[in-house]
Every structure is written in structure tokens, then in C-alpha cells.
């Protein structure tokens, strides 16, 4: 059994040995690199990592360079989760056969993928991994858009945002569909742990990641990843956007244990109106025209209803 890494403060956390190097091609202000470091720094154990095709992958493994000082694999857009599942199966096989080169290690198996690679094209592969019970963690870097290819809508793209394939225009307010609820869907597989995290709430994140590492079986993590390029905000404001996302409750932080027991893990002292979250991003700019202001009201109602639902779930202890 591996020892849980003890982290007292942010300074100690940020000075952990990096197995994901700062030398990468991600945009300045990209939350992906922050989330990845927070996940990896939560453990000192060895890592077997994958990235599905997307921003993280194309920005960290361009031959002949790599940003990864850990075992890492990329196969394709949809199958990063299954790559790690295959590696985990091999680990089990070699352990049973006594052929591990370092049998005393306790590696962690983690697949990273964007919302496109998780909510859309990789959905089936992740579902398969969760259902089969691999000892692995799937982390969604959820920036609510196909950012790597220039900002096309995914099934994580929220109502009213403007993306290149669901743009706002003379007769359209952009995205018409509500975001898919992946945390619930994955929890419904009966997996031991699923949770939503945000990079600004690093203590909450580390706690959840470490909980995920401690359980036996598949873990699903959805991480909000504010995208300076596609959400259209200044690169210096990534953490501010992340704060707005959690404090407006657009991204409530919670966990679901064993597929049913829901705990809210962060309750903002001062809940920020959703309007402030929307106003901070260029992708929602058009919603502030008179004819679309009703959508902002609907946004608030939807967020309130989801928050009330989460509270009821938590209280019910079911």
C-alpha cells in the first residue's frame, strides 16, 4: 500500500518534483497544465498516464520533445482511457506472473482527456473502462469546447455560448443544448468514486484525487478548465474565471461515492450571480443584448435548480 502524500500548504505543493514539465506548448493562462500538475502532485507514486488527442496531447509530446517525466501514451482521440486500461491489465498480468521489473511499486493509472474526447467521441470507451472496474482514474479537462481544433461545440458546451460550429449570429444565440451531466452518468456505473473539481480549489482537488487513488476501482474526475482562447478572457484571469465558475455554482464541487452517496465539498460563502460568470467571458457577450437577457435569467434558474437538487441528494443520503 502506498503512503498518502502529505501536503500542508500551496508552497509545498507547488514545489513538488514535477513529472509534468513547464516546458510545453499550452497557451499562456491555460488551466490544463495547472490541473495536470495538481493531479500528479497529489502522489509520489509512479505513474502510467495517457492523453487523448487534444490540447494537452499536442502541446506536450511533439517529437523529439516530451513534457512528461513519467510513462505516458497517446493513441487516438477516443481511446486514451482504454490505453490506460490495457496498461493496467498488463500490470496485473505481470504482477501475477512475477515479472514486474519493480514489484515494490504502486503505480497510479490515469487517463487525461478533454470534454470532446470524453463526453463525445470517447464516451463509449470511458464507459467500458468504468464498467469493467479497472483500477484507473479518468480526468476530464473540461473546457466545454473542442479547443485544440479551434473552438467547435461539444456535448459539454453550455447553452448560449458562441462556438465556431454553434456561433451566435443575427438570428441565433449560439449553443441551444444544455451541457451533458457526465459526473452523474459515470457515477451511474456504480464506480467507487466520481467527483467534480476546479483548479482554484486545489485543496479540494488534492483531497479528491487522493481519495480516488485510495479506492480500488475506476474513478471519474471532471475538472473545470477555463480556456483563455475559447472562453475569451485575458490569460491572466484564469484563476479569477475558475473562482467565478465555482462561486457562481455553475461548476458546483461535489463527489459521488459508490455511485450514490453525494457530498457537496465546497459551499461558497458569497454566491456570485451567474451573470457575473457569463459577463467575464467573450463567448457569452451576445447574451447581454436585450433580446437574449431572458437567457441569463434562465441560466440562473437552471444553476439554482441544480444546486437545490445536489443539496437534496446530499441530505437524502441515498
Amino acid at each position: 500500500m502506498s503512503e498518502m502524500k502529505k501536503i500542508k500548504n500551496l508552497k509545498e505543493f507547488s514545489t513538488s518534483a514535477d513529472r509534468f514539465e513547464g516546458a510545453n506548448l499550452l497557451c499562456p493562462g491555460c488551466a490544463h497544465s495547472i490541473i495536470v500538475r495538481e493531479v500528479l502532485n497529489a502522489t509520489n507514486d509512479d505513474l502510467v498516464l495517457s492523453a487523448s488527442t487534444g490540447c494537452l496531447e499536442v502541446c506536450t509530446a511533439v517529437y523529439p520533445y516530451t513534457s512528461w517525466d513519467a510513462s505516458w501514451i497517446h493513441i487516438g482521440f477516443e481511446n486514451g482511457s482504454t490505453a490506460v486500461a490495457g496498461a493496467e491489465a498488463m500490470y496485473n498480468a505481470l504482477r501475477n506472473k512475477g515479472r514486474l521489473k519493480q514489484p515494490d511499486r504502486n503505480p497510479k493509472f490515469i487517463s487525461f482527456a478533454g470534454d470532446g474526447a470524453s463526453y463525445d467521441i470517447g464516451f463509449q470507451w470511458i464507459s467500458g473502462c468504468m464498467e469493467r472496474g479497472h483500477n484507473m482514474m479518468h480526468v476530464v479537462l473540461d473546457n466545454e469546447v473542442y479547443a485544440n481544433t479551434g473552438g467547435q461545440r461539444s456535448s459539454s458546451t453550455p447553452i448560449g455560448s458562441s462556438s465556431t460550429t454553434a456561433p451566435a449570429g443575427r438570428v441565433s444565440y449560439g449553443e441551444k443544448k444544455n451541457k451533458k451531466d457526465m459526473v452523474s452518468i459515470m457515477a451511474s456505473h456504480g464506480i467507487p468514486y466520481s467527483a467534480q473539481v476546479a483548479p482554484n480549489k486545489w485543496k479540494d482537488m488534492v483531497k479528491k484525487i487522493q481519495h480516488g487513488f485510495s479506492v480500488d476501482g475506476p474513478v471519474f474526475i471532471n475538472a473545470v478548465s477555463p480556456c483563455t482562447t475559447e472562453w475569451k478572457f485575458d490569460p491572466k484571469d484564469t484563476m479569477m474565471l475558475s473562482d467565478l465558475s465555482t462561486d457562481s455554482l455553475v461548476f458546483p464541487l461535489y463527489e459521488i461515492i459508490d455511485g450514490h452517496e453525494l457530498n457537496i465539498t465546497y459551499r461558497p460563502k458569497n454566491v456570485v450571480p451567474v451573470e457575473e460568470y457569463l459577463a467575464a467571458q467573450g463567448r457569452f457577450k451576445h447574451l447581454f443584448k436585450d433580446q437574449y437577457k431572458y437567457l441569463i435569467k434562465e441560466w440562473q434558474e437552471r444553476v439554482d435548480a441544480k444546486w437545490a437538487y445536489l443539496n437534496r441528494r446530499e441530505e437524502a443520503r441515498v
Partner: protein
Amino acid sequence: MAFDKMELRDIEVWDGNFAAAQALRQCQIDVVAAYPITPSTPIVEGYAKFLADGYIEGEFVMVESEHAAMSGCIGAAAAGGRVATATSSQGFALMVETLYQASGMRLPIVLNVVNRALAAPLNVNGDHSDMYLGRDSGWIQFDAYCPQNAYDLNFIAFKVSEDHDVRLPAMVHQDGFMTSHTAQGVNTLTDDEAYGFVGDFKPMNDMLDFEHPVTHGVQTEEDWHFEHKARQHNDLMTKVMPKIQAAFDDFEKLSGRKYNIVESYDMADADVAVICMGTSVETAREVATEMRAKGIKAGVVGLRVIRPFPFFQIAEALKGVKAIATLDRSSPNGAPGMLFNEIAGALYNTGDRALLSGYVYGLGGRDLTKAHLVSLYNELQANVDAGKVTTPLQQFIGVRGPKLSFL
């Protein structure tokens, strides 16, 4: 966790699927990730039963699609161990993306492909459409003509694929139903002989070696992509054939069964030759013998290795032949046919260019009968006598309705 060895009789009555499943068991695979599809399903069913009965120690992961099967195989192979799976037809088609990824990442994996037609129209029977779909994927492709071959070629495939000078994945093809579901006598190896032949897996760039972290599956654009692809192709063309030959030689020493990169039958003095793959090779051999009794010097050439294409070995095998028929068991869909094209390419720069005619046959499990081959040999002899191709350049064997030849 331990596993039991299995006592086999010297000759077992197995179909091609069970022969392949037995070979996988004997190779002591570390990870099989698989998804069932007709007609290859009994391979994974057989393997699952071996596991349930305690004859297998490795991991068996039944995934949710063929794409995931090969994705899991790639992850497992990169982690560093022996990996195999099986599929057919639509499943193979779904896998195609990952086939290129497996070979591009230089990962040894053995894939048993039980050949079946591709929809539409949906069809579960044998033809070579799936085999042809894989021919540019960078895999080594072996072709079995019978259950014995399906058994033996699995051992060869692991030995070649896992060689550190090769590190390319390999397919073992067998004909759906005709081989996969037809029981024949199969000469067996003992478990120890079989495992001794393939040997222990030797990892390379394995993700589970935490002292040497590796990055698998990088991005290369116009600056490096071409070099990677060209080197992979060059390795496939130059390094693989000698390894296959060495494996065939070693296997002959072990089993007494001799395999050749190109299988030639009655070719020494042949005037007319049929070149084909799969079970048809055996039918053609029988007919060639009968044609010789009628005074036609008939021969048969079978491809044992489809990729890398045995360019020089084919030219050598066909030396001095006057008329050749290529038998393609896949709709060319807009070309003369894979075998026609490859054979034409192999012979074009040789001194004695034979008369070449193409035949498309057996789609969706349509039988190729001895009578078909008799008239085909007669057509080839007519070509020899006339000094030119007397038939359309492309013909369909046994298809009803109007003649559909376009050449």
C-alpha cells in the same frame, strides 16, 4: 496464481478457431483484449474457457468494441508484455484506425483475423475483404490455408513480431467458416515445445519500467512524419522477410512442417499458374494435379506472407510461366484487383512477362468449385496457345446474371 498445462494428443481434431485459441493458450499471452464477432468468436470463447478452467494465467479483458479491443492491446503492449486478440470483418473495419496506430508505435501484437465479407449487404461468410482492408496498415500478414496453418502461424507470428529488430504487429489470417469452422486433424506441439519456440517476452520501451519513463505515441508533422513512415516501411520490407524465413526454418526443425514465404506447387515446369490465398490454394492444388493428368502443365502459387509483399519471391516462383491467373476474393471496387496489381508490378520488369488475367471469386462465401478451376486452367492454356489473353482481363467466377467484366 498458477496455471495448468494441457495434455494434447499428437493429432487433435480442431477447427481453425480452436487451433488458434490453443496456440494463444500455449504462447502464454499476458493480455488478451477482445470483442466477439462471427466467425472469429470461438477463438475468444475458447480462450475464455481455458481461463475459466485454469489453463491461463494472463489477463483477459472483454471490452465493448473491436476498436477498444485493439486500443487495449496497444496500451497493454506499450506497458510491456505479450498481447493478442482476434476479430473479423466489421470488427476489423472498426479497428482499422488503431491498426495504423499499433504499427506506427512499433508494438508487437498478434491479431487473428478470421476473414469475412464486409457489408453492405451484410454477410457473415468468408471472403478476403477484411484482409485486403488491412494491407496498407503496416502489419505483417500471414495467411493460413487450413486449421494446421492457423495453429502453426500463430507461433511464427509472435516470434517475428516480438523480435527487437522488427517490433511490428502481425496478423494471422484464416478463411471464415471454411477454415475457422471446419474440423481437421491438427498436429500439435506440446505446451513446453510451443512456449519454448516463441520464448519469453522481452520488453522494450515498456511503460511499466518506472526507472526509464517513455513517451509513446507522439506528434510529428511535416518535419518528421515522413521519416518515421519511410523507416517503418523500410524495416517492413527489408528486416521482416529474413526473420520470417529464420522462424520458418526453426519451426521446421521443431515440428517437421515446412512453410515458405511463397508456397509453390507443381511450379517447376508449369506453363499455367493460379495464384491465390486461403483455402482456395488447397482446392487449386488438387485441380492442378488433375489438369496435369490431362496434359496441361498446371501449377499453383499461394501467398503465405501477404505483407510485406514477397515481391522478389513471387517473381522467382513465376519464372518461365506463360499464363497466370490471379484470384482475388475481394471486390476490387474500381481496380483490377489487389493480387492482379501486385503480381503485375512484381513481373513488369522481369524478362519473361507472362500473360496475366484477373479473376474475382468467392465474395460473401460463394463456393469456388473444382469445376470453376478446371475451366479457368483451360482458359489459361487457351491464352498460352493463342499467345494473348483471349478472355476479358477481369472475370467474375460463379456470379449469376450478365457478365460484369469491365476490362
